[in-house]
């Protein structure tokens, strides 16, 4: 059955090869791209969620771990 399907689909061998080549190109590009990113930018982005309540406004309640300490 499988041979039957394979023999009738045009260029079936190409699909696997195409997929792997595509992924290889994509991943290589991604790696090069990410390695070229500047440290200052990465640092800024990394700290973005930690800054979100550091602006003016009500202070967030203490962390749970701080609560744990205070309960001891």
């Amino acid at each position, binding site marked *: *059955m499988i041979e039957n399907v394979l023999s009738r689909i045009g260029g079936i061998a190409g699909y696997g090869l195409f997929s792997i080549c*595509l992924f290889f190109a994509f991943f290589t590009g991604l790696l090069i791209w990410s390695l070229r990113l500047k440290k200052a930018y990465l640092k800024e982005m990394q700290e973005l969620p930690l800054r979100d309540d550091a602006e003016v406004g009500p202070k967030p309640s203490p962390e749970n771990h701080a609560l744990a300490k205070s309960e001891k």
Partner: protein
Amino acid sequence: MSVETFKYDNRIVRAFAIATVLWGIVGMAAGILIATQLVLPATNLNLQFTTFGRLRPLHTNAVIFAFVGNGMFMGIYYSLQRLCKARMFSDALSWINFWGWNGIIVSAAITLPLGLTTSKEYAELEWPIDIAIALIWVVFCINLFGTIVKRRERHMYVAIWFYISTAVTVAVLHIVNSLEVPVSLFKSYSIYAGVQDALVQWWYGHNAVAFFLTTPYLGMMYYYLPKAADRPVFSYRLSIIHFWSLIFIYIWAGPHHLLYTALPDWAQSLGMVFSVMLVAPSWGGMLNGLLTLRGAWDKVRQDPMLKFMVVAVTAYGMATLEGPTLAIKSVNSLSHYTDWTIAHVHTGALGWNGFLTFSVLYWLFPRMYKTKLWSIKLANYHFWIGLLGMMFYVVPMYASGVTQGLMWKQFNEDGFMQYPNFLEIVIQLLPMHALRAVGGILYLSGLVLMAVNLYRTAKSGKFVPDEEVQVASRAPEAAPAHHGGFTHRWLEAKPLTFTVLSIVAILIGGLVEIVPLYLVKQNVPTISSVKPYSPLELLGRDIYIREGCVGCHSQMVRPFRSETERYGEYSKAGEFVYDHPFLWGSKRTGPDLHRLGGKYPDAWHYNHMDNPRDTSPGSIMPRYSWLLKQTLETTSLPARINALRKVGVPYPAGYENGQAQNDLQAQSLKIVANLKTGSIKAEPTREIIAVVAYLQRLGTDIKAEVKK
């Protein structure tokens, strides 16, 4: 620099939080009930509405779309506002999202026990509800993108990328897999048949795991873990690689659900290779999460929120190593259709989704109520009970899965099957099934403790519905001093470009599989003896779908000697060309049924459906005695035939006007006569007659071919 004052919307976050807890209790309770039924079938109370086949999709839908769905919205609505430094785009859309989504869940909770189902796993809901899901999802997308567009923060943090990929991919998956032709308000047929339906379904099913259960939760991990640990994510560079490679690869892996089936081999191999590659981005993400805690592990000891988070991320790592392992064909030949798959998905559901949801809930409540968590001790009890529950669930299921797989395949030294009676194997597994139910009870108990703890926390504080904050407004000239050339920075400032690129990344994999899929459609070898179902068989098949028989029985004999010896000739793609939808199944709690036709007399089926223990002592199949009493509904037959003709089943023109009813009656009377020879007096108008007709048809087309 001007300063803007605005308020974060906490009300919507609280609403989703309460919904996730309540639906979690409902979904897991349904799970415990059906787990118990696998040991004690009588616990279905002999009611069709509470029987395994109908409740199993209720359990999966409740846990995935209600518990995790609401948990996901909770996590997104809180973190998105803070990461964008903006209130949600529209309060009205937020509430339409909340009530619409939960209305859909209520409609699922009503329709599934009534047997209104498409039978496609995790896409069981019928077409009107499918349309509602699409509409509510569009509302969510507008709200998400609207918030991103009006954000005050210049850049989009990694969590937001994961939210964007969730929004667009779920939309694509849901629409493509739900294409169906309506028969009536609550009945439809998939436009795809057999092999095509299977491939589209598991492209959907696998990526529902990827983009509903994984990407939004990864986004939440990237936000809440650094917040709780009070330190930035380990490597932002790794998170970029994690995101792009994960969404690119995940979409290709669907065919690993169909290994050794009638799906063409090239598609199976492609699915397997990409599944194995998926380990890399998944583990990159897991390590990024765990390494964020470097130097902060003392906090994990003290903070229950972090404990839950660490177990969640570890469970993600375990499940994403196990998944690719199960996708290797030789491993899959043992694991597929067994409880091993059930263990695997529960490592993900209980460990990753469950524990991460609990972690976020414990973090959010004290903050939204400006108070302390009511009891850290109780949260720690929850942690240990939940962890024990998970162990009691997955370990017996692994043991059960491997036992089952090995016993199915065992031959004795003379070359005969060691365990030719399927039931003998089922009975071996019952102690493990019982232990699994205990695990579920423990896990749910932990959830109840959390509900109490969160309730008391809320009581002890004062809810802040609108949290006022002041931030610097986004100035266009505030460009950074450190340019990185053509970097992610450029991309992150452009949500539309980012979204388009994400769609391209997920579509490539889909297209490379779907284009050949259409070629397959023209090339599935037709078998001349395969004919459309007779009217009576068609109605029987629809009852089979209604009762959820596919939850326990596969219809796919794989090309192994252990299967051809037990069931008969292996299944061919050409045999399923009129199957809208396909019913291959994914689990064999009971035996495969594809070659059932002609194996037993009609009377055996009649007695077996009335009480399986009469014909098969020790069976755990529920009774279907209502089929013997309920009248077969035949008025919708013309609409059913018409709908099937629209999707390509070659019923002759005008067949539904009279001839179909005549054929139905003739076949019913024939079965009634057969039953009489077995001393059974049956009415020809009962549902059981249609079910017997369908079961006796299964897999017989190919036998006719062989005879020729």
